[in-house]
């Protein structure tokens, strides 16, 4: 029982981590929250469902296409809802990205309907035995795929020129601009990267957990809770926060029920914000956007 719970918690947490990483990337680069971020996960899930009906192959083969499509959606959001308003007060970005989320959510509803849909498994269905535990192949595949994506992201941010420029412009836009970094392009890059990661999470979640147009709200909230727990603005913290959330959800749901787990999660997040505003895994308290 326990090993199974650990594996499903890890699989869920790995997918949440991709969502939370995108949330924090945009937060750091633009000092703003993209309130359509959760809806991008649903969009990625439906993109996978749609591609799979055209091309019935394992989802892992659809991943590159989903990443590209979603990165384009991220760029479109930046162009439509971020750049025209970047100098306006935070409420303007709040409204514009909520509007985009509304369009995405109801667009998905119009295209695919409100009923839950399942995407194809990453590699294949079935179970595998790992020592005493029996886990679904899908869970293991989710964990491996998400870990690879996170490792790729780390290489991109830490080792490439693009990643270094992105981090520089996120840390101090003025200084980065003075050093010749195209800051606006870096913000657009962050939006694209975040949307691609959200889309990948949608692809990973679409098989076991299904996808509906309404999923975005809860996923957005979980990305926020992960970021708040992990110390606002920290990428590693967001991953830790995402795993903590997933283990909490899976654990409490197995003892009580899923809605109770969700409600308790949000209540605990509010309690932590009140008692320990720097997060659970802080290095230093960051600026709150």
């Amino acid at each position, binding site marked *: 029982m326990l090993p199974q719970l650990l594996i499903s918690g890890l699989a869920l947490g790995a997918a949440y981590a991709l969502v939370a990483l995108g949330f924090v990337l945009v937060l750091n680069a633009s000092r703003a929250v993209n309130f359509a971020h959760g809806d991008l996960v649903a969009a990625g899930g439906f993109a996978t469902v749609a591609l799979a009906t055209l091309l019935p192959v394992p989802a892992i083969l659809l991943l590159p296409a989903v990443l590209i499509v979603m990165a384009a959606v991220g760029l479109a959001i930046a162009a439509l809802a971020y750049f025209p308003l970047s100098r306006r007060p*935070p*409420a303007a*970005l709040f*409204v514009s990205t909520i509007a985009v989320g509304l369009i995405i959510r*109801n667009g998905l509803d*119009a295209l695919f309907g409100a009923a839950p849909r399942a995407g194809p498994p990453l590699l294949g269905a079935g179970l595998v035995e790992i020592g005493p535990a029996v886990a679904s192949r899908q869970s293991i595949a989710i964990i491996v795929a998400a870990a690879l994506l996170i490792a790729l992201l780390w290489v991109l941010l830490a080792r490439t020129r693009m990643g270094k420029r992105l981090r520089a412009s996120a840390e101090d836009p003025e200084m980065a601009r003075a050093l010749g970094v195209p800051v606006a392009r870096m913000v657009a890059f962050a939006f694209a990267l975040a949307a691609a990661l959200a889309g990948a999470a949608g692809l990973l979640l679409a098989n076991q957990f299904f996808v509906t147009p309404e999923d975005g709200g809860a996923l957005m*909230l979980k990305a*926020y809770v992960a970021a708040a727990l992990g110390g606002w603005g920290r990428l590693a913290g967001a991953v830790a926060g995402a795993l903590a959330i997933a283990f909490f959800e899976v654990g409490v749901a197995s003892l009580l029920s899923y809605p109770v787990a969700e409600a308790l999660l949000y209540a605990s997040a509010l309690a932590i914000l009140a008692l320990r*505003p720097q997060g659970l895994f802080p290095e230093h308290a960051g600026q709150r956007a």
Partner: protein
Amino acid sequence: MPASAPEPTQDPLRVGAPLAALALALAFALAWGDPYALRLVALSGLVATTALGYQLAFGHAGAISLFQGAAFGLGAYASALLARSVSSELMLTIPAAMLASGLAALMMVPALRRLGAHAFALATLAGAEILRLIAVNWESVTGGANGLAGIPAATLVGVALPRGLPVALVAWALFALAALATRALTRGPFALGLALMREAPLAAEASGIDTAARRLSLFVLSAAIGGAAGALHPFTLGTVSPEAMEIGVMITALVVTVIGGSRRPAGAVLAALLIVHLPEWLRGFEELYLILFGALLLATILFAPEGLVAALEEWLPTRAKEPDLPTPAQEMLAAQPAQRGPLLAIDGIEKRFGGVTALAGVTLAVAAGEILGVIGPNGSGKTTLLNIVGGQTDADAGGLRFIGRDIASPPHRRAAAGIARSFQTPPVVPGLTALDSVAAVAPGFGARMLRTARARALALLDSLGLTERAPEPMTALTPGEARLVDLARALMLRPRLLLLDEPAAGLTDPERTELARGLRRLADHGLALIVVEHDVDFLIPLADRLACLEAGRLIALGAPAAVRQDPKVRAAYFGAAA
């Protein structure tokens, strides 16, 4: 930009158009006698009331909440449960619903206190989601996903209110009541202070405004008003279901607030009628109308940030408004109580930013009636010193005593204790006139207090030679004039100690002479002044004593002429400048 001025214009057309639309909608519903049409008119009233409450948080306090829909839903459930078990008397259910929603919002306050705009929004969404999960899953009480049916008809002071016209009238009466009850909040000095707080939170805080308290109390009040609107919802439909709690209600309140204008009760009327009826006119496009909502929202925020109603009003004929200036108040400065010893004692203040030492043990004192000039090269710690005295920055070590007492920490309490300051970059609130930027820091609610505040503000602007500019919007002022308005704002607090950060920068020569004369007059009235200034020629004739900082250390202190001749000062400051 009159559109964003916190005090609504009195033009009859601007209030008349929404009222006419409402009358038309009621007449239309009455003439057709269709219960469904009446229900939509009632729902519009509830949506308008919810949005009116949301305006207080979103529009006035700049608190981006995502809780307003849940506040509405909680009010609906509270009212429905009371109606089923106790009584459907509105005099009971409406206050109970307001209490429930207000308390739920209040419970979130400890978590929300320190959050910035977007984190605030998400934390309120977490609270809303908890309530929705309870409504859907606590079946024995809430009826679960199906909700509760068979809500008895409402009564108002014992008189039965059947669904249809009576409920529609009560819904709009509730809106009128809420608009009247919040009028004083949205048109007095308090509302001007909110504008200052939205655009320039540092300056608001330094003006004695407890920004967190104002933001959070308006958030709680907005939730209570949302609860009141929700209380009528079960009596409008005869049922209550989780739909009342879902994100759709929140989105509707947001759309109405953005489209109608975020600080316009009349805009809420028009936008609520429009948004509630829009889906009816687009029958057969069920999902598409929600996409249309999204597109409308995006287009409005991009192209008509003050709202569609304000954008339409630009096309309406308006009467030229007379510049409505009050008579300046007589008294400008309160007589300062006598003070023995220094007014402010700064003792061994230290401050480091990362690896950089900004202040390394500075000890200084200022007496009442004294002007202390502070000079020093760039980065010597002058502004940090002002920030530590003003409370914008905390010192790492050292003590501050003001009037013989340790200083309370948050800047707004220091301002209340008598420490006022100006800023190197003066705050410019786009929607405010010069006069209202100064009046904004006065306490009080409502139109009468506003007149008093403006009279005092005008006297201060008068004394700084800005009478002509008082009715101008802040955005039309020169940087030098904005600086003087900022000084007037600081004086509005009737301070005993005034901290000025480069007050002469950007001023013309005649303005400088006028400013120096004004500052001397203030000192003669018994104020203590600390003036940080780059321009030594401005300070030498003005200051009683001059302090020179270099790399966070006090290297000279004394009579201006002596400090100027000090070889250390010449090396650090004049040497560096030349």
